[in-house]
């Protein structure tokens, strides 16, 4: 810039910058010093930041900076720390029996919290957020169980699943009496109405219930027992329960006798680990239907 003498504008009494356009001169109002120094300071800061922190994008990758900082690494580390902390309390859960967990307030609180989250993440998709189930997916709130609702049984069911791809899985299968022509169509109608009468389900008019009883005793009683109460040892459903897994009507029973449906529950032990399975068992038990 050319040297210029300090020129004072007569009108305002302010120094000019010496720049002139068509007779108009620019007054010199410098930036406030505090602002200027902060501006210089931020330039210096930016340079330091470039050197220390990851900043400039390159064609392949970016400048890493001397501090080798990475948000991803921090997040991974925090995650590992959280998992390690959880394992610490989880160890107590691992060593305690399910009964002990339920009777020790600190363990119960941990198991309930972990169980609630794990249930929401893994179980709620089929069993519902409130654990009330859907058609074909058992209701875990009520007190009728297929495989049993005490703590140990729940833990086993959760760990190994039902008809799952696991050597220890629970397995039960009902023959397809209609599809495989083990029973006549009329016999199916009779037995379905008989079962309906056991469970207080409205039956169809003019059906011979006595004949149905005979069919029941010849074909069903082995698994579903005398009174239709089923057997949790073998995973045979209670036919007198207020809730059915499938349609609770005579038509529904007929459909099931004709071609039974068999739902599958995955084995969770390998995916979730023993601690979480235990927490889930305690959580499901605490819904209120636990035995």
């Amino acid at each position, binding site marked *: 810039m050319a040297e210029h003498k300090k020129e004072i504008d007569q*009108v*305002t009494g302010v120094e000019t910058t010496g720049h002139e356009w068509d007779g108009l001169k620019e007054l010199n109002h410098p930036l406030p010093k505090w602002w200027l120094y902060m501006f210089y300071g931020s330039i210096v800061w930016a340079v330091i930041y470039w050197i220390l922190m990851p900043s400039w994008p390159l064609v392949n990758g970016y400048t890493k900076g001397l501090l080798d900082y990475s948000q991803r690494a921090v997040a991974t580390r925090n995650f590992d720390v959280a998992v390690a902390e959880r394992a610490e309390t989880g160890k107590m859960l691992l060593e305690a029996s399910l009964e002990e967990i339920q009777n020790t307030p600190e363990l119960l*609180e941990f198991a309930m919290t972990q169980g609630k989250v794990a249930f929401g993440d893994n179980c709620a998709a089929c069993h519902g*957020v409130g654990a*009330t189930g859907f058609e074909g997916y058992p209701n875990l709130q009520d007190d009728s169980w297929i495989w049993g609702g005490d703590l140990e049984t729940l833990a086993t069911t959760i760990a190994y699943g039902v008809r799952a791809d696991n050597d220890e899985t629970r397995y039960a299968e009902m023959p397809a009496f209609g599809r495989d022509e083990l029973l006549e169509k009329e016999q199916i109608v009779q037995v379905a109405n008989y079962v309906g009468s056991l469970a207080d389900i409205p039956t169809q008019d003019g059906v011979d219930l006595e004949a149905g009883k005979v069919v029941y005793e010849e074909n069903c009683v082995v698994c579903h027992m005398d009174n239709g109460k089923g057997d949790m040892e073998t995973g045979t459903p209670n036919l007198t329960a*207020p809730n059915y897994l499938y349609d609770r009507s005579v038509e529904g029973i007929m459909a099931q006798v004709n071609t039974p449906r068999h739902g599958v529950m995955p084995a969770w032990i390998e995916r979730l680990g023993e601690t979480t399975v235990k927490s889930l068992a305690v959580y499901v038990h605490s819904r*209120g*239907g636990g035995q």
Partner: protein
Amino acid sequence: MSSQVEPIDKEEDEAWFASAAKVYPMQVKGRFRKIKWAILFISLGIYYFTPFIRWDRGPLLPDQAVLVDFERKRGYFFFLEIWPQEVYYLAGLLIIAAVGLFLMNAIAGRLWCGYLCPQTVWTDLFLRVESMIEGDRRKRITLDKQPWNAEKILKKGTKHFLWLMIAWWTGGAWVLYFADAPTLVYDLATGQAALSAYVWIGILTFTTYSLAGHLREQVCVYMCPWPRIQAALTDEHALNVTYRYDRGEPRGHLKENQKRVAAGQPAGDCIDCNQCVYACPTGVDIRKGAQLDCIQCGLCIDACDAIMTKVGKPAGLIAYDTDINIERREKGEAPVYRLVRPRTVIYFAIIAMIAGVMLYVQLNRSMTSFSVVHDRNPLYVHQSNGSFRNGYSLRLLNKHNKEQSFTLSVEDMPAGTTLEVVGVHKDAVSVSNDTQLTLTVEADTTRSVRALVFSPEGVALPASKPMRFKLVDSDTGEITIVPDFFRTPGN
């Protein structure tokens, strides 16, 4: 270049922007100076040493009298223990503080600004340090003007060092309110304290040093909202630091005024010595009347009284007074002082009311608390025997410093109703009937449990049956009842 244009900035116009001129307040002696020293020592003493006061609360709780414990989510204030949900006490205190400020203002103007505001107190302290090192007003002006030499470097260096030490101690005392003070002092000294402690000390050192050392009156004049609000709240009966112009004017130098008197001309008491301006920490001329920059600290009163005494005139040319009294004196009427007027009475009533409510709430503060939340999904469960079950989340809160046991039961349910709490077995406790359980809650904690209520078999219930949970404190017999509902599908 010649100009025919009228200058915009005429002399009589106020400039839109002016750099703040540095103020060199003169040290004065007198009544108000003494009051200010006393308040400074008391308030800073409270601030710096309160964290070291001990208060025995038993073996489990901290023994620091004033402690805000973020980690355990508790606030301790002497005999008070505040849980996070009781932070409305703070709201009450803030309302009292705000109305208290209004009341002070209605009685005697900016008492807060002049004597109590931390900005004033710390600035006063920093100014005192400055005048001890660099000398009083005149010497400081000279020092600032003289070129840098060993003496100037030494004096300025010492001053800034002492300022930083005070600022650092201010920050150091602040963090002590948030952790056990003696332990934290040791940890800070040995470099083991939490990073946040050092960061906060740093922040408060910086703010104290810059606000009390460098910005001083600029905080009051440019940054603080209170002068603006205060100007709108004041009235003609509020005592303010006032130059009694009825007595002072026409002002003139001592000899000049003596000549005027001799010539039979009017002459005021003000000898235009400017001591009031030199003493002012914000650099205003009180003789211009009440103004935004004036924090009403009363130091000009001390300065003026000293001069008036010297020239043999009565003190009080500048004094706490009201405009209305000046007018009355000019008319020859007696001055009036009205402390009790609607404004002060209403402010006082508001303060008394809020303080009363807070006191009532505090005296009736429950040491235990109990809440019930009904399950939302599912609302009820149909049991295989035909009965119904409802689930509830219960939260018990024990503010006692020892384990408390409670008896839980349900009321207003048909006979045969049973109550279960997950993890609490009936055989483990003494119960007189099926619907009663004993729960224990550890000292100073909350406990959440899941309760299940089973309706009796074969009893028809409406869709929503009002019922109640009853919690009895086994020690004190205190009964807490929480109403809720028992849900069924209805008829």
